[in-house]
Structure formats: structure tokens, C-alpha cells
């Protein structure tokens, strides 16, 4: 038997979810989320293991995973900053914030710092438009951003490492 990469915790979480759907394929999104929470991204071997667990072809998992922007099919930095640049955020300075973040981190939008500490991305509307501009820092929202608070946040993360 092939060695399993996904943890027992993954399989336990999926066993809990299984009875909640009339069709196993509905576990595809939850399993991708769970796997990404463990690995930070979704390498090919993981997609294959999920395919085997669910009982579909690997291509089907890849087809689904590639549709959704939240699944990282490439490695990302430890701190993934996703800055919303959609209308409401744009109206309140998101573009200037993006420029600032690029300079501060020394990368372009879409890139990861060489030390693997930060990835900077652009996001579509995050559904927090009344507290714009907004970014996600891994799983958390940081709202009412300005250059100072963005700077402080990046400094804080750097020092915590």
C-alpha cells in the first residue's frame, strides 16, 4: 500500500462529514479545504490521495480544485496577504495599499518573498466593503486598513517569526 500523506485527523474529519451528504462527491470541497489547512497548499500527490479516498479520477479533483481561487495549487508563503482591490476597497485606497505592500515586501502582487515568509495577492471583493479597505491575513480579516496599519501588521508578523 502507498504511504498516506494526509493525517489521521484529516480522515477523521472526513468520516464525520460523510453522513452529511447523500453523495460522496460533495466531500471534494471539504477535503480540499482540510488538506490545504494541513499542508498550506495542494501538491499533486495530495490531490491524488483525495481522489482515491473519494473514489473519483484524479483529473476530476484537479478540475474542481482549479476552478476555485482559494485552493493553492502552488506553494504560498507562511503569511498569505490577500488584499481586496474591488470597487469599494479601490474607492478607499486599495491601489495605494497594494503599491505600498509591494514595496514593503519587495515583491510584486502574486509573488512570494524569497524567504517564504509572505505571499502577496490581489483579491476580488471579500464581502467586507463597509469596512474597506480590507485584506485577509491567512484566515483573518483586517479591516479599515491604511498604510500605517498595514505597515504595523507586516512588522508584527516579521517580528513574530
Amino acid at each position, binding site marked *: 500500500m502507498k504511504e498516506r500523506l494526509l493525517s489521521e485527523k484529516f480522515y477523521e474529519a472526513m468520516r464525520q462529514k460523510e453522513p452529511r451528504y*447523500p453523495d460522496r462527491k460533495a466531500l471534494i470541497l471539504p477535503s480540499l479545504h482540510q488538506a490545504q489547512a494541513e499542508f498550506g497548499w495542494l501538491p499533486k500527490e495530495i490531490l491524488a490521495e483525495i481522489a482515491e479516498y473519494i473514489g473519483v479520477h484524479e483529473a476530476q479533483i484537479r478540475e*474542481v480544485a482549479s*476552478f476555485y481561487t*482559494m485552493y493553492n495549487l502552488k506553494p504560498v508563503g507562511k503569511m498569505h496577504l490577500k488584499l481586496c482591490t474591488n470597487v469599494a476597497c479601490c*474607492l478607499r485606497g486599495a491601489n495605494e495599499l497594494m503599491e505600498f505592500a509591494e514595496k514593503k515586501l519587495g515583491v510584486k502582487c502574486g509573488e512570494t518573498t524569497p524567504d517564504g515568509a509572505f505571499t502577496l495577492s490581489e483579491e476580488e471583493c471579500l*464581502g467586507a466593503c*463597509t469596512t474597506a479597505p480590507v485584506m485577509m491575513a491567512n484566515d483573518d*480579516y483586517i479591516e479599515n486598513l491604511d498604510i500605517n496599519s498595514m505597515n504595523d501588521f507586516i512588522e508584527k508578523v516579521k517580528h513574530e517569526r
Partner: protein
Amino acid sequence: MSANPQTLFVQHFWKDSNRTLDYYLKEMNGYEAARKVLGSMAPDQVVEEVKKANIRGRGGAGFPMGMKWSFIPKNSEKPKYLVCNADESEPGTCKDRQIIRYTPHLLIEGLLIGSFAIGCKHAYVYIRGEYVREAQLLEEAIEEARAKGYLGKDIFGSGFDLEITVHRGAGAYICGEETGLLNSLEGKRGEPRVKPPFPAVSGAFSCPTAVNNVESIANVPHIIRLGGEVFAKLGRIDKSGGTRLISLSGHVNRPGVYEVAAGSMTLRQIIDDLGGGVWKGKKLKAVIPGGSSSPVLTADEIDAVYDVEPLMKIGTMMGSAAIMVIDEDTDLVKLLLRITKFYAHESCGQCTPCREGCHWMESLLHKVIHGEAKPADIDLLVDVAGNIGGKTLCALGDAAAMPVQSFVKKFRSEFDAYVKGQSRHA
């Protein structure tokens, strides 16, 4: 004095401790509406009450909620599903998030009542993937309710069973469209389906399904508690009962989520009285009244009453009640490019007019902004938009076309200025 003494939601917002079951039971008569429904009402009576309430769907299309529920077949052998749309993906919108954060039990009780009404034993909440914390809060609230016996088997000794599952999306605007959502729930790409069959006939897992927005469902306990007629009268306008949660963003002094009795205020009053007017003492240039897909309004058009039909009369829409305020210094051509880029990025690619047209519009707008466009390119832009709208499986095509058509129609001079190399923003 507030113009709106009657609110159903916002008085409970903005305080973390209000989300507990304890608060809900003590301060909001929690689960009493469901107890009444399960103990003494027939499913049909519930649907009738919702019809009387005149509540329009809060997700964007404004479809009458009671009518939607009445389409679910009663004698089907198949399971039936109630699916709550918590995708909140229309740019500008962030009201459902507040319901989940501060009054999650209103949503759960609404799901309980709604499930009973349509005969569903397992309801799903499809929540956008980015709302990681909100999904956790909702799961916690579901656990609280289950521990008290408000979910699970034989609820209130009525013999009615219900489970609720929170299903997380993973970043795709199109999954807000109800059939894209259903495909995503089933573990597929979130591509919208060909209709018919409509979800009421064949929805989640090929079973009869009602898809309703978070705010729509969270209003159901209010409808039962107040009675459909009283709820309907909260609205100050025909065919629109209850209150509306409004997400007010952009260039206003006080952005935020507000609640107004349906049809009780004009757009101007909302911007000035609730939002404190345009920021920095600037003048208003434009307003996007119902999420980024709704046709833009000029500063002279905002005396319309803010509700579904009055906005339709002036050629725009209320959508998800997301108002974005735009000041005099904004470059509308660049803003339109940003909007168009969004739809191009989010087009699922199934329908050629949308897949190709959105990118075409995006590149034409790039040309305009970079001073490479000819006057005929502006007409071409409008022409492309006209060939997307109404020609696609789902309304994303229209959503992409309407901003282009309305921005060019109402602010043509800004586009022409770019073409002539005279834009003050260039």
C-alpha cells in the same frame, strides 16, 4: 428622531456577546416562533404566512419568497432541500456576514421553520470560503442549538427532524448564482446549470430545492412572530414587506450596514442621513445602487425611493442592497475597468458571449485608458455589452454588461476625453 423606529436586526448587531443562544432566548424570544410553527401549524400555513408577509428575496433578484416555497412539490418521493445562500459575493455587499456574526440563531431558527414548511430534513448553508471565522461561528451556534434540542431528532416533540450542514465555498463569485452554488455543493465546478429544470424541481442532488439568501431566511422568525400582515406593513411600499439591510460603502462619511423599513427612504436620504453625506466635503458624482452589477446613477437621480420597483422605474436595480457612493474626483473610466475586470475574471467560461465578451470589454477599456482608442471603440464597447446581456445561461452576463452600458451612457464625456487625450485623470 430616526426615520425608522422599526428595525429587526441592527439593534442586535455589533456586540459579540449577542450571538449566544442565551441572548437569543432572553432578548429575542428565541425559538418561540419555531416552537409555535412545529407545535400548531401545518406546512401550508407557514407558506401562506410568508406570502402574506410580502417578502422579496434579499439575494439580488427580489423574487417573492412565499411563492418560491410554494413551487416545491408536496408529493415528491425524493428528499427536499433548503439551501441557504451565504455566498455574499456581489461586490459591495456585506450584510449577511453581520447576520451570521451577531444573530446566527435567527438564521438557524429561520432554517428550521423554512425546512418544516417545505419538508426538508437536511438544510445546507453554503458560505463563501473567505468567511472562515463566520463559518466557525455559525457551526458553534448550530452546536448550541442542537445541544438544546432545537436541531436533531423530534424537535419540540413534534416528530420533525432537522440537520444543518455548513458547506464552505472556495473563492468564486459565480457560486452566488443559485445553480452554480448547487453544483459547488455537489463537489463540482461552480458552473451554472441550464434552466429548466429549476431548482424547485431538480436542485441539490437532483432533488427539489429552495435556495434562499441569508437575510431572507433570517426574516422568517420575525414573520411568524409578528404575523405576515404586520411584517408586510413594516414596508412602506407595495409588494415589499419588512425591512432591508443596506451595505453602504465608498466615499461616505459613515460607511456601514444599516437597516431601513422597505421603501421608507430615498437614496439621497440614505447617503446623507445614514451615511453622513459624501466624505471630505466633496460633491457626489455617481452612485452604484445595488451591487457592482447594477446600472450606475448620476448625482441627479438619487431622489428615487430606495426599493425594488422605484429603482426599476429609473432603469436600475436594488440587487443585494449594496450602495456604493462615488465622489467628484473619481475616474469613472478606471472604475469601470476595475468592475469589468472582475466580471471577466469571474466568468465561468461556459457561455461564449460572456467568456469572450467580458475580456473584450476589458481590453477595450485598457485601450481607452492608455490613449490608444478611437471614438469608434467606445461604440464597440457598448455594442459588445449589448451582445452579452440576455444571451447567457445565468445573469453574470447581464451583470457584466449593465455597468458598461450605463457608465458609457451617463458619463460618455469622460470616455471621450480619454480618447481625445484630454482626460484630467490620464
